[in-house]
């Protein structure tokens, strides 16, 4: 992983289907963005998020299924708790809060996927410019 990368964790379901739709429509987004598919966002852990930052990433964005539509019922709820914990730790470590974010899309929402990851990346460049 290169310094300055932006890691986008998607779940295998709604979020990944959004990514596939975006691909089929030949959308483009910032080259720093590296999507990583998890079976469910519930797989994420505080340790994984911290490690991504340790290796020099600019930001971590997690996209899963909409609230109450997690295919495993509790995965996105668990991820929410983890992200909140990681966010607090990162704040202590001096990282700006905009560098970690969690969101959701419904299946097939390619446009939304692209829009959300682009916005996240733009937000990060504003943070690094100190705006």
């Amino acid at each position, binding site marked *: 992983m290169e310094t300055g990368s932006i890691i986008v964790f998607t779940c295998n379901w709604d979020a990944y289907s959004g990514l596939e739709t975006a691909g089929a429509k030949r959308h483009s987004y910032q080259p720093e963005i590296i999507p990583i598919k998890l079976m469910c966002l519930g797989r994420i852990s505080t340790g994984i998020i911290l490690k991504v930052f*340790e290796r020099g990433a600019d930001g971590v964005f997690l996209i899963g299924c909409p609230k109450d539509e997690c295919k495993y019922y509790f995965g996105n709820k668990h991820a929410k708790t983890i992200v909140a914990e990681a966010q607090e*730790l990162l704040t202590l470590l001096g990282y700006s809060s905009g560098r970690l974010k969690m969101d959701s899309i419904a299946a097939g929402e390619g446009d939304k996927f692209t829009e959300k990851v682009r916005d996240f990346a733009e937000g990060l460049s504003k943070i690094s410019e100190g705006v």
Partner: protein
Amino acid sequence: MTGIQSNMKTMREIINQNRVTLCLTCGKCSSVCPITRWENREYISPRLLVEKAASGEDDQIFNDLLFWSCITCGQCTELCPSDVDFCGFIRDMRVLARKENLTGACTHGDAIQTWARIMTDPELKQNRIGWVNDDLKISDKSDTIYFTGCLPYYDIMFRDLGSESIKVAQSAIKILNKTGIEPYVMKNERCCGHDQIWEGDVKTFKALAELNIDQFKSIGAKRIITTCPECAYTIKYDYPKSVGEYGMEVMHITEYMAEQVSKGKIDFVNDQEKQTVTYHDPCRLGRSMGVYDAPRKVLRELGYHTVEMKKNRSAGLCCGTSCWTSCGKTNKKIQTERLGQAKETEAEMLVTACIKCQVHFKCAQKDKMLENEIGIQIHDLTILAAERLKS
């Protein structure tokens, strides 16, 4: 660079320096080792591992189940009649194992080790002193540094267990203020590196230690006070030995409180009904630093009636896990054993002086099936003391 952290020792040197070849095969170490007692996958023991090392079966050492599961409690070293430092041997050998990319199994998803590595960044600007509220007085011109350790981080990580992390830090400042000290609290303090050096990660340890020592020197204080026994031990003994001198006295808050009591400089309200409590000796404070009397003296001064567990002081049992590594069912059995010993005393409360002990015990207590065997209130001594300061 001198000492083990130069990374240059060979396996044979480590074996010789820790006097492993002097083993008499008496088995005392194995009889006290809590891992030997509770590990039921296979029989492992310090004596067996010492024998492997002494007889030159070097390739077997790293593969021994005890190699990473040893909790470095030091009970074996304490008891050995032939002065074999098994605990030191493990610590030194782990440095060599790391070079071969071997590590213990991480617990908590490696989060704690990761934030320690993040802290090796010299440019890091933490926001770690938000817990210093308006009631607490700190100063940028002080001869005393209060070394917070990872308490602000543990406060987040172990909130679900009801860990008293940040309250420990706040209580320490209250106590210091009461005795006329407005301590310096480092805005960019790093993890002390205790877990790293005991797990063989000397690279991270040194980077953390150097960043802390640079800050100590620029502050120019005379004394460092910690609330974590591991920070106290590491800063006091490992920093000068492996990184460099910084010329300051280091003490754990329990030592400081006992000293202030002797000087008559601190007074506690002790008119509460005599509650019976039992004190758990943290390994680094007890066996490693020899501090057994100070916490007990403070407890008496607070008006508690203290009773000892069956295993106490230098024979005290470890809280079951160390370095946030390789924690599992064997460790839980040790935690359960220790809490059971506390319960047997019929004390109303178990008092600790180490946040990690508290986290480990409270984690074991999550098991409600064991409520009758191990259910007992747990509190930190620093907090109990701060709550009873005479106004």
